[in-house]
């Protein structure tokens, strides 16, 4: 009997962080602008020490203006989506749940489209509007998903699916009937795009990620019990109602955050928790941090591929996560069946 210890959690997280670090280094190295590793390192070091004058302006541009922001955004989005996916899989008691199943991404997309209609040239408004759309959907689905005063997994899932379909239909309608509007940007946003700069300082967004993921983590033990049976969990003293609300709000906000910044990148939120379960077990005290870091690794690598595979053409990140993710998942699944 080897129960999970904090030390084991920390050890595995450090291991994954090392992998993430390697992925970041690799991603920094590759790109259309030719830069030697030596130059990248000196740029990073001088940048960290605040000595900007020592670096040629083009190096600064490429490392701190293009590659690093994109990587930082990718880490944020990957971590947010994977943690959210893990949370929803527990909340809805459904291994097929992903961050978008409750309609959050459709609501965000609707917010984005409305902002394009109302004020197409305002910078950064699209992201704020998307987040507002997500928040509105979260609230709506919450009230639809209640049954007898508290969140019921089955009802919530239904409410989310119906909302997602409805919102998608509205979006289709708007995109088809709008006169002369330039909605080209929407197509890319709907496929997932890491090239836009966030409207809000990245540090605040990372703080939001930590708050959201941290909130879900406080319910990790509870989720373990709930996954063995909701009634039994109640009998063991778990405040199931409170846990559901916390996970629902936190996971939905994480999804809204990710989707507002980069559109709906698919498969990460669904696959990462499963891959981490196969590698490290189903205990949520370990699954949540491993999903977060694992998602970051996957997005960084997927974006790297998307940028470089058919350079200079850039593929959508969502396409890469699907193409690369599915075979890996199949391999791990077959391995676990043996």
């Amino acid at each position, binding site marked *: 009997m080897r129960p999970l210890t904090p030390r084991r959690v920390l050890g595995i997280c450090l291991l994954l962080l*090392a992998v993430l*670090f390697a992925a970041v280094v690799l991603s920094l190295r590759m790109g259309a602008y030719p830069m030697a590793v030596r130059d990248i390192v000196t740029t990073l070091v001088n*940048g*960290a020490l605040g000595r900007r004058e020592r670096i040629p*302006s083009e190096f*600064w541009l490429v490392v701190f*203006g293009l590659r690093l922001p994109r990587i*930082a955004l990718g880490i944020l989005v990957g971590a947010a989506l994977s943690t959210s996916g893990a949370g929803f899989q527990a909340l809805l008691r459904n291994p097929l749940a992903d961050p978008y199943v409750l309609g959050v991404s459709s609501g965000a997309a609707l917010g984005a489209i409305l902002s394009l209609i109302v004020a197409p040239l305002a910078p950064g408004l699209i992201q704020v509007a998307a987040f507002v759309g997500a928040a509105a959907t979260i609230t709506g689905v919450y009230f639809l998903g209640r049954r007898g005063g508290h969140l019921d997994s089955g009802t919530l899932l239904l409410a989310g699916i119906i909302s997602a379909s409805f919102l998608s239909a509205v979006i289709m309608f708007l995109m088809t009937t709008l006169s002369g509007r330039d909605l080209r940007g929407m197509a890319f946003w709907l496929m997932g795009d890491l090239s836009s700069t966030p409207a809000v300082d*990245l540090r605040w967004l990372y703080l939001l990620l930590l708050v959201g993921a941290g909130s879900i983590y406080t319910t990790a033990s509870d989720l373990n019990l709930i996954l063995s049976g909701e009634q039994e969990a109640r009998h063991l003293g778990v405040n199931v109602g409170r846990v559901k609300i916390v996970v629902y709000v936190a996971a939905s906000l994480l999804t809204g955050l990710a989707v507002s910044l980069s559109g709906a990148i698919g498969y990460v939120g669904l696959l990462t928790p499963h891959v981490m379960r196969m590698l490290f077990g189903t205990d949520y005290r370990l699954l949540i941090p491993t999903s977060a870091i694992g998602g970051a690794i996957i997005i960084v690598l997927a974006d790297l591929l998307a940028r470089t595979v058919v350079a*200079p053409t850039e593929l959508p990140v969502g396409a890469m996560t699907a193409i690369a993710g599915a075979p890996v998942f199949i391999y791990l699944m077959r391995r676990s069946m043996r």
Partner: protein
Amino acid sequence: MVPAAALLAGALALLSLARVATAFERPLAASVAQSSAITHVTDEVGRQVSVPAQVNRVVTLSPDLTETIYALGLEDKLAGDTNYCDTPPAAKLKPHIGTAQNPSLEAIVALRPDLILASTSINRRETVDELARLGLAVYATNPHTVRGVLASIENVATVMGAATQGHGLVVGLRARLEALHMRLNDLPLAHVFFVVWQDPLITIGQNTFIADALKWAGAESVIIADQNWPQISFEEVVRVQPDYIVFTSNHSGDTGKLLSELRSRPDWKGLHAVELGHIVNVSDEIARPSAGLVNAIEELAHDLHPEAFSGPGARYAPGLQKSTPEFAVTAVCGEEHAACAR
């Protein structure tokens, strides 16, 4: 040992990430700083752009702008274009920066452009904003009408420091359009159904510059719609019974095969235009806001109103393949504008 190294690396990474947020307090223009003089202009979407007086390297983000650069004779300054810039064919050999919708920002930076040209007809606002954020000069054109296309060409020429070439080219194009207008003025407009896509059936809306181009060719679209690319049902076409049906392709003039294919389809066969053989296959330049648009307009006018072009004074030979922009410039310059720079 390993955890300690990982922690250290993590700390360094976080520190760099934090720096990222403060990296761009003031826009830095890598190559603009090298030039001596800077002009402040307003582009066609209202943005303030700081353009160097001497533009040596330009990157175009859309095929029509690439075509314009070649038409102005400035192809030596073209440092890079998109994957799909194929007019003229020489443009395919230039370094590529990706697709127009999603170009690689890094590839653009790697080309060290003094100026980047974008067009609202195909590029995204986000791309332009990102490039501006990096401190690069981006000039965006915004053509909505045929006259607007000509104005855009002049603006691009001015920004590139080739105002005289631009003026010459545009004056010539304008003259051709005016001549065309005089010929077609008294004739009734041909009622035309413009096919953007067959399945689903998509045509043009009244706010597109293609609709405007049609008017210059003595035609108008039978479908009035606010959306730019309305999808309509075939019944609507049957109800309206257009005089002509216009298709676009990059092999203009070859209507024989197209006609027999349409006549074999039960639904299209019932249209009067198909019965009478009033099918026009016009160059796809009609959909591109560049100098070649005028060629396409003339071609279309010939196909729709052949009676206006018989007799002396006919300058355009039907069946001619897509002409190069140089042809247009010299043809006009030789006849009417001795003051042309070239």
